[in-house]
């Protein structure tokens, strides 16, 4: 499932841009591949991070995967509900399963992201 209006990475993260705040999470394809999540390691608020660098870790019972930041920015908020309910990522990856919010510090980092249509085309090649 791909949601219109969001931007995507080749590593299957999504980003929702509202002004200079970017909300991010993992796309449906990624949560499907990982299976039922048992743990999400969240970043620290205040951490500065470059686009495509590791920002979080998601663990299922049989796999663990790194989550990369879609943009360059500073972490302003994390979804702490995931510490006790990691399964929210499986149930509702684009809404309740968001991972964190970043204040974007380099707008050019948005240029490398795909829109919904391009991401769907990319998924079709996998």
């Amino acid at each position, binding site marked *: 499932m791909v949601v219109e209006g969001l931007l995507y990475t080749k590593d299957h993260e999504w980003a929702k841009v509202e002004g200079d705040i970017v909300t991010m999470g993992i796309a449906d394809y990624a949560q499907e591949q990982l299976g039922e999540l*048992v743990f999400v390691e969240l970043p620290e608020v205040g951490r500065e991070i470059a686009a495509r660098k590791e920002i979080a870790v998601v*663990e299922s*019972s049989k796999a663990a995967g790194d989550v990369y930041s879609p943009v360059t920015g500073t972490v302003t908020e994390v979804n702490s509900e995931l510490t006790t309910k990691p399964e929210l990522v499986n149930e509702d990856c684009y809404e309740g399963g968001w991972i964190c919010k970043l204040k974007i510090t380099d707008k050019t980092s948005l240029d490398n992201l795909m829109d919904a249509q391009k991401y769907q085309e990319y998924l079709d090649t996998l």
Partner: protein
Amino acid sequence: MEFVPHTEQQQQEMLAEIGLTMDGLFADIPAHLKAKSFNLPAGLSEMEVRNRLAELAGKNSIDLTLFLGGGFYDHFIPSAVYSIISRSEFYTAYTPYQPELSQGTLQAIYEYQSAICRLTDMEVSNASLYDGGTAMYEAMMMALRITGRNKVIIDDSVNPIYRVMIRSYTRNLQIDLDETRCTNGLANRAEILDKLDDQAAAIIVQNPNFFGCIDDFTDLAKAAHAKGALLLVSCYPISLGILKTPSAMGADIVTGEGQSLGMPMSFGGPYLGFMAARKEHVRKMPGRVVGETTDREGRRAFVLTLQAREQHIRRDKATSNICSNEALCALTALVYLSLLGKKGLKETAQRCADKASYACQRLAAIAGVQPRFKTRWFFNEFVVDLPREAADVIARLIERGFAAGFPLSRYYEGMENSMLICVTEKRTKQEIGMLAEALESVL
């Protein structure tokens, strides 16, 4: 376990089955990497092997009276320990590849973890590591992962063998390893606090420390936590029968050598590293962890849990490259602790302390022999300063049938005349008296 060789004939049959020659089978190995010869001596008959091994074993001095400690200890091992661990179900088992199929092995490890948690008063334990030194190294790496920092402060009252191991493990890593120098028998507060900054991941200390002195690290735990660092404590498990637990001091990760829990002293092991931590850090802990759950029919069952920390799943991001544990040694420790019970462990620890205290008084009565850290409490080891070189005195006492102690000059500057003496519950008043007489006669 029986050795099952394959004969020349079987090899030929197998090659015929897959349609290859031996050279063809190994064609992928470049010629220059193939061994020309293994340079093995001719085989020996069983009788010849026995004679040869007996001759080698005869070089060991097994009848010395042991006052030697320094990390490995001569405690009494009840015969029941061997009887129980020698059951073939336990004795031949390696870390199982289909772990949940081996419920007995998993239960034993689970019970071991529970025992280590009770002993250290910590919340989580792993399934064990190789030995006290590697456990300390793993704890240090865990602290680096938890804090995201790369500086570690370690006091030199920590077992020097562990410190050598940590140095060799970290030689090619970007880790700032800062050693502080113990001068008065306790971890050097002034130096540690001076080096403790917001780049420090951990303070590593030991209790009782290598000189046998008992410390309380509550102050260091508070100081470390105030700077966002962790306190790592290595401890001697038998001493926990009577001493304040590392948990009560505020330690974040506790490790130690488990040899004293029912394993004999032997050069090179196998030994047992244990590790316990606060629950909040469990996902950063290395090694296997067994958990309790229920099966489909609601029965109690055991599983390997939190495996996403491990290298077969997390690959290069794994918490450690350890993928095994010291299952038989962990079982030994569990059986030993179960046989002693809480009361027995306390009595054993108290006897060690009482006998060491008596031995220290007895030896200090000899002219020229001085306890080095007079004002310190000690558990079952203490340092004495002699009027002459300790290594020389120790060599003379070996001729008289005593492994009298450890020469501290081997690892510490300015301690040429200092000897570390250990007394376990196995030493008798008579043996202590004989050591005192022998020492007096060689000084």
